[in-house]
């Protein structure tokens, strides 16, 4: 069986199930912004976040994210590097410059050379090469909530 298809471990707490709308209370103003132009990646990540009771908002482009006004900044950004229009990295630079402080950014991309260019970059909290395991993403996201 390929590594990516390993069945979920119990440790990740998949027993808990919550309907959409997110959990009440403390978690309500904690949210994750997912920015990826690939529709099925967006929906896949949304489903995983929903299973984990994490509130997630998805955006198909940097411009769409910039146009969205939220009452609170996201706890982290899951950001595709390659986007139509403004690139993911350009978005992080812009947010860092014009809307500081920049939330932790987890860059994702199918191209390792793009990710390799991020090494030691202060704007990158982490990076994942697509396809990545959901557990790896959650391990990066959860401590930030």
């Amino acid at each position: 069986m390929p590594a990516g298809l390993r069945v979920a471990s119990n440790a990740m707490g998949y027993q808990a199930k919550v309907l959409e709308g997110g959990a009440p209370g403390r978690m309500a103003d904690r949210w994750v912004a997912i920015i990826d132009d690939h529709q099925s990646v967006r929906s896949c990540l949304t489903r995983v976040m929903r299973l984990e009771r994490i509130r997630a908002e998805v955006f198909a482009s940097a411009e769409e994210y910039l146009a969205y006004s939220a009452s609170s900044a996201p706890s982290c950004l899951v950001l595709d590097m390659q986007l139509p229009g403004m690139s993911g990295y350009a978005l992080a630079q812009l947010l860092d410059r014009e809307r500081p402080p920049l939330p932790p950014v987890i860059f994702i991309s199918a191209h390792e050379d793009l990710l390799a260019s991020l090494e030691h970059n202060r704007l990158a909290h982490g990076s994942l090469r697509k396809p990545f395991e959901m557990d790896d993403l959650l391990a990066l996201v959860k401590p930030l909530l």
Partner: protein
Amino acid sequence: MSQRLAARAFTVTIFALALGATAPSAAAQRATRSTRVLVIYQQQAETRPMLEFAEQLRATVNKELGSPVEFYQEALDFDRFTGLEQSSPLASYLADKYHQFAIDIVVPVGGRALKFAVDQLGRGLPDVPVVFALCAMPQTDPTAQPANVTGRISPASRFAPTLEMARRLQPDAERVVVVGGAGPSDSTSVDAVVSAVSALGNAPELSVLQGLPLDELLPKLRQIPTRSIVIFANYRLDGRGHAYEPLDIVGSIAHAAPAPMYTQLASYVGEGVVGGSVLRFDDEAVRTGRLVVRVLRRRRGEPMPPVELIPNTFVADSRQLRRWGLAEDRLPPGTELMFREPTLWERYRTVVLLTLGIIAAESMLIGSLLVERRRRKQAQLVAEEQQRRIDETRRQVAHMGRVALVGELAATMSHDLRQPLAAIRMNAEAGAKIVARASGALDAEDRAMCEEIFSDIVADNVLASDIITRVRALVRREELRSQPVDLNEICRTSARVVQYDVVARHAEITFELDPGQPTVTGDPVQLQQVVLNLLVNALDASAASTTPHVTISTVVQGEKVEVAVRDNGPGLSGEVQQRLFESFFTTKPQGLGLGLPIVQSIVERHHGRVRAENAEGGGAVFRVTLPGTRSAGENASNLRLKTLQMQTPVANGILQ
């Protein structure tokens, strides 16, 4: 002869040591030990000119002396460690360090290294002969040196003859601009230039740009008047305390200056400097090495050889003379001309003679054709046959070019495939988790999620197949199709194909697409190939810019439609512009030189034309003009209307 014997004795000693036999006596060791040379640099020793100097010096001494030599070196870098020159702790540290080694000769490189060796080190290493290199008057006074010192020295500042050369080449120059850094040796050089300028009769205006950081210096330099002589004094340290190897930056300084630049070191010539009266490190290393050997071979009691004068050497870069339109025959007599290219006649003599021969032969052929009128018809047949062959070749070349283009795009395509494949795998993994988590049957929510997952997977699979189909369409060798093609759509698809390249190069594409539906009749695959080719070229060209930017625009102009691809690269030089559409002409290292000829042949087959020009405000723009379908395509748009009407009832039943 005695040296050869000594060398042999040395070899024998080593041999004995290697065998672990009896240890040699102390006397034998002294008699056969290597000669020890201590080289003291006042700069860093790792820079290219200094490494070349060290290498040449070592090679010369080794070769000429013929017995083993050990080199020790100290790079004191006085430009950065400014206090060290008068430091006696440093001197006593060095004296201690070399105490055990019995240094035979000290070679200070540079005036301040010499001063340090004599004033400071001399006490620790008394009576050791000193041979200095790369020194200049008046900073170093050869008559004031102790008896154990000799060396090679420039008789005066090199800047006086350098200025003389500049004034010969540019008699109408009104100003001398001196460029220099803030380090001690930079200041010495700047002062030398200033005094050389003021010594000139009819002294020109003088500007000194000293100690500026590089990012402030370059813009200032761009603004100087063009009727100037720029003298690069030296630039080892800027005003903010950053140290530079001048060789690394002299090129960009020469490039920024709108007037010819001159200098005093041969190593800088070739980086964009016109030339000057220069110091040649390689020559100096060899001559210093020979002097070192003469000193070492002195008989007991024989005085040191006298100080040698470094001769004046004029050097000029012929490419720079051409760049600035300076006349070669105005150079001072005896100037060594570097990078001289053969004249057109020298280079193309054979080609010219051959062409003349061919022209003569062809004239005869034409003559005989004229005479033999009876065969004219036959000749016509030959011409038709040739045309047929040319068409065939063109088809083959188009195919070849398409394959070459696909080669360039294959990387992009494989990157494109990764996106849907990654999504499929991530979705499958998430689905497997949902199924594994449910102990028994799936509940409604799980089922809904799994359904979503499956439809995502199918969508990604379709996307991946589309990408593959797109590549196949490009490689297949097809006959020309003829159908209405929306150029806006072609532009957008082409941009998607190169999207990976765009992101990887931090480039940007702007669309200025005419909303009036620029439609032409033609082959969609071939037209896409045209736009793709221009786009790939534009991206390559704009890579030279710090903010690579490409604009694709479409415009409907009456009966015609124009697609323009504009970059912000360096633009097209005269020669490039002329040869642009020649087969196998390329400016890219990996290019085949087939892209634009194919573009041209496709456009011509579509009854259009393509031209290239320099855009206003920099960069190049390629314009493809094609006959639009607006008038001739009245039928085509009617046809489309009919199709729409037929589809409407099915697609949108509610409206009926």
